[in-house]
């Protein structure tokens, strides 16, 4: 899943994208959302999430 697809799936649920930038190691994107979730989408396709709304975005992305 690429960064645009991740953004579209989460935004469709009314969770607004509030920040999008290359991550600190420049191997992917760091996305922030209005519910406090931070989603890392690496260029190799790996996705991780953290922050207050992490569980909600994990559900939307079909992740544990």
């Amino acid at each position: 899943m690429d960064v645009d697809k991740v953004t579209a799936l989460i935004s469709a649920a009314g969770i607004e994208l509030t920040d999008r930038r290359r991550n600190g190691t420049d191997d992917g994107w760091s996305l922030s959302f209005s519910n406090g979730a931070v989603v890392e989408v690496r260029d190799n396709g790996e996705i991780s999430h953290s922050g207050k709304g992490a569980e909600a975005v994990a559900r939307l992305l079909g992740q544990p």
Partner: protein
Amino acid sequence: MRTKSVVVLCASSVFIGAFGPVLAAENGPGPKVYSGKGAADDLARIDTVVVIYAENRSFDNLYGSFPGANGVAKASASTRLQRDRDGKPFRELPPVWENLTAKGVTPPVTQAETEHLPNHPFYLDDPKGFKLSYGTITHDLWHRFYQNQMQINGGRNDKFVAHADSGALVMSLWDGSKTAMWKVAQKYVLADNFFMGGFGGSFFNHQWLVCACAPTYPNADTNPAKPSIAVVEPDGVTLKEAANSPKSAMEGIPKYVSDGNLTPDFYAVNTMQPPYQPSGNDPAKDGDKAYADPAKPTTLPPQLEPTIGDMLSLKRITWAWYGGAWQDTLDHGYKSPVPNFQFHHQPLNYYASFAPGTAARAEHLRDGGLAGTEFIKAIDDGKLPQVSFYKPQGDLNEHSGYADILSGDSHIADVVAHLEKSPQWPHMLVVVTYDENGGLWDHVAPPKGDRWGPGSRIPAIVVSPFARHGYVDHTPMDTTSILRFITRRFELPTLHGITVRDTAIAAHGQKPLGDLTSALVLKDK
């Protein structure tokens, strides 16, 4: 009264700096609307004001078929017709990208089922169409500062689809006639010429409700927020498209060089997080647990502009902002899908005047309770302050993507029913409105105002024993009309943004924006 206000302001050194803009506005050019003492005497019949602030519906989306209103049937053919980004009319609407219904809705309405819709508005509850109910959660839509202006397209309202992330969905409507609030609107006053105070989304419009101002992020170009600065064409309204952006809305969602939260001159116009908890951003490691980490790029610095709350406090008028699920979120953290507290829907939590530990915070930022229970208790007990703002929790606010219409509409109608039975009802004015259009099309051109708005048309219902019962009010108004009423009723100093808006509206030769009194009958009552 004006002189008295200035004396009070000058008596407090704390206030002098904070209220500088107000003093400037009082003494500066522009309309002086609120000087009539007689008017205030009439308005004194109202001693309790309640503002209920729902989410994300355009007027046409929910009330476009209301009898006597300027609804969808009155939309010109040119406004109903949507145009692509190159200005050419669509042959058909693009599909709703990533499905029309929200994830988890069964049965879903898939993207494929939304292909080939004709180029005009359509009803989601059409029994010959999608047959959705008010209880269905649908896909969210972009509702952002620059996109809203690009969609309005100088008042033509013909680029809503072109600058959306949800394809045809922006043209969707509901026959709202079966909702509980429709009946409330029939009984009291529906304002059909009422616009959102600012362009774009919830964050910005909540700021307009309390401050009539655009928040600022000083020196944003020298701190972590720098990548959030939008890249805009010289017209100051159009986002610069990225080289890889699809040329047509039929091919996909537009892409921009930087669709950020901040204007190039550092005003915050899209969602930023509050500097205080509850905030989407956690506290800094080893930082004050009542604060959000200020180093996070989405944490807005504390704001210093005076708000309507400051003005009310200045005149010793009692008031409160009741946030649904406020205390639950402070105590137990963010939970979804219920109550799904929205951090950026609590506008006063961005202001230094209401920082953690202040007496003002303890007095004025109150818990509305889960499902509004604390707010309803205050209503039933007759203990509402003179001015109350009520923000329903997320699942009850009618926002696309995570809330349905039925839950929020029923909840708000229930709150109104409690208000009608409250001991304070005989002298009450209630305004039920929406923060913004949620990206949904509306056919009426907003009045030409200032740089910040007004944006698209939204529903507003005025409920009061003094309301013109069964009336559709065509007076031009916007979110700041609520502040105009409060300002006039309680003889407050005028917020600077209202003065600026009045001046801009007049400069464009538009009718002055109303203050809700056109919906009321105050004499001989």
